[in-house]
C-alpha cells in the first residue's frame, strides 16, 4: 500500500482522512506528521471527528484515547490503532505500511 498526498493539503492541527479503504487519517502538529488507522476499534466511529490535544487523540463518540504518535490506546491498553510509516519528500508525503 502506498498513498501519496501533498503537504499543502494537510492543515496544521486537523485530523484529515486520506484513505477510505483502508481508512487512514493523518495529523500534522506543526512539527511532525502522524498517520494511523481512522476507525475507533470500540464502536467504529470515524476518528477524524475526534480531537487532538498534545499527543492524545480522543474519539468523538465515547472518549477512547489514543497516542497519535504510535496509535496505542491509552484509555484501554491493547486496543490500539495501526500506525503507518510516513516518508517525507519535498512537496509530498508517502504513507506506507510499517516495516
Amino acid at each position, binding site marked *: 500500500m502506498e498513498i501519496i498526498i501533498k503537504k499543502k493539503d494537510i492543515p496544521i492541527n486537523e485530523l484529515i482522512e486520506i484513505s477510505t479503504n483502508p481508512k487512514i487519517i493523518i495529523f500534522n502538529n506543526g512539527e511532525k506528521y502522524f498517520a494511523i488507522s481512522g476507525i475507533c*476499534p*470500540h*464502536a*467504529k*466511529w*470515524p476518528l477524524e*471527528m475526534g*480531537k487532538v490535544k498534545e499527543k492524545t487523540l*480522543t474519539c*468523538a*463518540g*465515547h*472518549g477512547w484515547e489514543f497516542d497519535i504518535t504510535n496509535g496505542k490506546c*491509552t*484509555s*484501554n*491498553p*491493547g*486496543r*490500539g490503532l495501526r500506525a503507518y510509516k510516513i516518508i517525507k519528500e519535498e512537496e509530498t508525503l508517502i504513507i506506507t505500511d510499517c516495516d
Partner: protein
Amino acid sequence: MFTKFLGQACTLIETKNERIIVDPWIVGPCNVNSWYTLRNKAATRKNIPTDVDYIYISHEHQDHFQEETLKEFNKNIPIYICKFPTDRFYNEILKLGFKNVVELPSWKPEKLSNDLEITSIKNPDLMFEDSALLIKSDQGTIFCQTDCKMDFNSLKKVNAAKPDIGFFMYSVANWYPDAYNYSQEKRDEIAMKRKVNKINGFVNYVDIIKPKYAIAYAGGPLFPHKSQLKLNYPITVFGCPDEPKKAWENTNNSKTEIILMAADDEITINGKHTKCNEPILSTNKIDAVNELSLEIQDDLNRRRNGEGEASSKLHNEIIDYFNKIISENPNARKHIDMKVQLIADGKNGGDFVLDISKDKESGTFVTEGKTNDWNYWMKIPAHLVQKAVNNELLWETLFLSARWQGDRNPDQWNEHFINLLYDPDPTRISNIYKIYEKMH
C-alpha cells in the same frame, strides 16, 4: 403521542391507544442502596404508571432494571429486550416472575400493534451487553439511547428514521475515578476530563441523529446516603442536564432544540413541554441532594442495615469462587495478566491475593494474605463480597455503588478483568476471545 420522563433513563411513551415504558427505575435506590434518581423528592409507588401495555428494558444495570419498581407491574405484561449473545439478562427477568419476555434481534423492527413499532439496537461492545430503542407510531418517532454506546453506522440509521424526539445519555455510569484512591486534585482532573468527553459525546450524538427535540437524560444519580454525600461534589463525572444543553448551545447548531426535562415532565411529539417539577441542575444539585438525604436517610439506613453480614465461611467461599473463575478462563487470564489484592473488609472478612498473571497456569490462584506487588487493589465490605461470590450481586452493581475503594498500578483500565467479573461463564469468555484475537 407524548412522552413522560420519569427520571434517569425511564420514559413512558403513549400513542393514541397504547403505552410502553422503557427502563423503569422510579422508586427506591439502586446499586446496593446508593443511587437515587435526580428528583427533589423521592418518588413513591404512586409515581409508577403500572397501566402500560409493554415494557422495554435496555440492559441489566439496576438504574434500568430495578426490581423494586418492576414488582409493581402485572407479570403478564410483555417485556421486550434485545437479543444478546448470552441469555443471562433474559433469565434474570424471568426470575422476577414475568411470564412473557421477548428477545428482539438488533435492528429488526417489531410491530406491537397497528400503531406501534419498536426496534431494538444492540451496542457493538464485545464484552458488555446494552441496547437502545427506536419507537415509531403513526404520529411520530422517538429515540431512546438509554446508556447504549452505539456504533457510528447505527447512529446514521437512527438519523435516517428521522426521529422527532431523542433522549440522549450525557453522563458516565462508572466508578472511575470516585472509587479510587486518588488525591483530590488528580480525582478532579480525571472527573472533569471524563465529563467533558461525555458531554462532547452527547453533542455528537445529537448532531448526527438530528431529532427536532433532544432531551439529556440517563445522567448522573444522586448519592444521598450521609456516608456518600461527598460524591455529589460539584466537580464530578456525574453532570446535570443543563451542562449538555449549554454545550449544545455553544455549537450554534439550531436544527435541534434541547429541552430540559425534570422527572414527571411531559413532552408531546410536537415539542410542547409540560413542566411538572423543577429540574435538578448543576446550580441546585447540592441543595437538592442535601434535602433528599434528610428525607430518605432513615429509610436508606434501614435498607443498609438489612443487607446482612458475611458468613463465617466467607474465606473458603472467596477462595473457591476465584479459583474456579480464574482457572476456567485461561484466555481471560492471558489478557488480564495482573495480581489483585482483595480486602474483604469487616466481620468475617480477610485479605486475599488473586494471581491472574499470564504465566500462572495451574495450582491455586488465590491465597490469603497481602502482597506489595498488586496491580489492582480493592477494599470491599465483606458482606457485599459475600453477595457477589454467592452470585446474588453483580460485581458491576457493587462497583457502581461506589461503596468500596480501589487502586491501580499501573493506573490503567483493565477491561479483561472487569469482563471476567461481569460474567465468568467460560463459553461466553471463550467466544469473546475468539473474536477479540482476530480483531487485535
